[in-house]
């Protein structure tokens, strides 16, 4: 296979990949849970702590000055990555979960009342289910669910009926973390907008696989986690259209998000600061920007092409294993694969693969409704990114075959 990336070079950028576990070379196929960090990200975080660390905004002194401009430059990097119209639309959060909770709260407080409906899909991650359930519990609203078919593809025909005049927002994942499906979010957004309903897209599993253009999608909110796109933990992004964010009440209260504070009343700061209460994780945000710069240097297009080839190869190889069933067979997909072998318990398989040095995830992957759909307790999930190789896929296949021998 001839693929357009210098994988050897790329792998050398990721220190963790050269490790041994149980005296076997590490084969890390749990990228859906979290991705590894290139050296440039690790070094940026270290450099910031060794030379610049200082609280941002409001500081008159040199370190604060420098750190503030690095932080605001990171915001610009994220803006460009998403092609947002303005840095006022880029909020740094604690992660994808933090971002969704912020929207569910702020949007919910302003626009959701008893009898209203929130539309999500059957394949959402718990982080895009539970915040809406909590909101519905508080407000007396209810959740409506777009189902998927047995290939793991949304049944879009159902959407029209689900979008009623009580629907306040649609919250949909861009790519499924357990089945790999890439959803036709643009179509969903169009349908929702036709009825005046805003849409939140959960990009937690999409951004690490390719560039996203929020203006082309015309989504109202877009969220993701830094740690899933090769950046540091504890950081995330909430994109929101400026006109909408302007109208929303803040999510958290604290330092930096206020203008004037008296006990009689408080006025809030302008965007994006209104949504960044307290000392933000500036190290995380700047580390995320370093990760995005790194991805740019490799090229999103090349990454996308490489991953598509890897995906095709993996699907073919997995499909060739007797008694192995793949859950989620959408053609338009990211390099995430869920499967089960005969009646082998996924936990057993995971433990055995682990001892061969192969890190996969087993269980529900925080998408219990997906498991319920298929009537299973969990799957084995291998999730790949551009630093994974054909050889690693081969090792996985061999590992699966050995596991079957041991257990079947």
């Amino acid at each position: 296979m001839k693929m357009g990336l210098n994988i050897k070079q790329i792998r050398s950028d990721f220190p963790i990949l050269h490790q041994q576990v149980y005296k076997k070379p590490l084969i890390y196929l749990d990228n859906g849970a979290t991705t590894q960090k290139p050296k440039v990200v690790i070094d940026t975080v270290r450099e910031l702590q060794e030379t610049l660390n200082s609280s941002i905004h409001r500081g008159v002194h040199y370190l604060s000055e420098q750190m503030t401009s690095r932080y605001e430059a990171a915001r610009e990097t994220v803006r460009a990555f998403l092609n947002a119209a303005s840095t006022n639309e880029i909020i740094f959060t604690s992660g994808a979960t933090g971002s969704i909770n912020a929207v569910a709260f702020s949007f919910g407080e302003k626009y959701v009342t008893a009898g209203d409906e929130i539309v999500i899909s059957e394949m959402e991650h718990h982080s895009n289910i539970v915040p809406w359930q909590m909101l519905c519990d508080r407000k007396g609203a209810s959740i409506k669910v777009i189902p998927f078919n047995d290939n793991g593809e949304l049944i879009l025909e159902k959407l029209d009926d689900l979008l009623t005049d009580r629907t306040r927002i649609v919250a949909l994942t861009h790519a499924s973390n357990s089945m790999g499906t890439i959803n036709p979010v643009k179509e969903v957004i169009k349908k929702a907008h036709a009825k005046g309903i805003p849409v939140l897209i959960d990009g937690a599993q999409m951004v690490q696989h390719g560039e996203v253009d929020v203006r082309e999608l015309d989504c109202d909110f877009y969220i993701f986690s830094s740690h899933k796109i090769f950046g540091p933990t504890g950081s995330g992004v909430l994109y929101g259209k400026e006109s909408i964010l302007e109208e929303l009440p803040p999510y958290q209260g604290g330092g930096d998000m206020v203008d004037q504070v008296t006990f009689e009343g408080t006025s809030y700061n302008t965007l994006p600061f209104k949504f960044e209460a307290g000392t933000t994780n500036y190290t995380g945000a700047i580390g995320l920007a370093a990760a995005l710069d790194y991805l740019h240097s490799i090229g999103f297009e090349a990454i996308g092409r490489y991953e598509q080839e890897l995906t095709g190869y993996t699907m073919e190889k997995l499909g060739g294993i007797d008694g192995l069933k793949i859950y989620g067979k959408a053609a338009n997909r990211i390099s995430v694969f869920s499967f089960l072998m005969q009646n082998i318990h996924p936990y057993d398989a995971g433990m055995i693969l682990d001892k061969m040095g192969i890190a996969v995830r087993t269980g529900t992957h925080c998408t219990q409704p997906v498991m319920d759909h298929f009537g299973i307790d969990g799957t084995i999930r291998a999730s790949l990114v551009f630093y994974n190789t054909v050889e690693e896929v081969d090792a996985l296949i061999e590992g699966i075959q050995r596991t079957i021998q041991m257990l079947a």
Partner: protein
Amino acid sequence: MTDYNEIQQDIVDEFSVFEDWLDRYNYLIELGNDLPAIDPKYRTNEYLINGCQSKVWLHADLVEGKLLFNADSDAIIVKGIVALLIKLMNKRTPAEILENDLFFIDGIGLRQNLSPTRSNGLLAMVKKMRLYAMAYQARENQNKES
């Protein structure tokens, strides 16, 4: 009957011959396969210890002062460890179980399976086994008094 800690030491010795993890697992799989399935009437939610990734069912009786355990798991490696626990604790008095530390799991390199964050139900099962022992001991003491 062999001393409680002697059995633990035997298990540790048995495992020490395996150099490869997969051999250890193969052995556990064998043990798991050999352990009879739990009586279906105990394979119910009432006796379920939910480990979120794998399930363990456990039931215990006290017969003539000795505990009789009945346990199972839906994951075979977990069931192998369950088999070892049963081998060790079955037909013991509550006192024996409560007095002695459980060291063999650590000794055969499976400690992580008993860590509080492991979602396989084993730690909860071990705790439950000791709880059974305590409950039956308390009941026996009461019976003696009355």
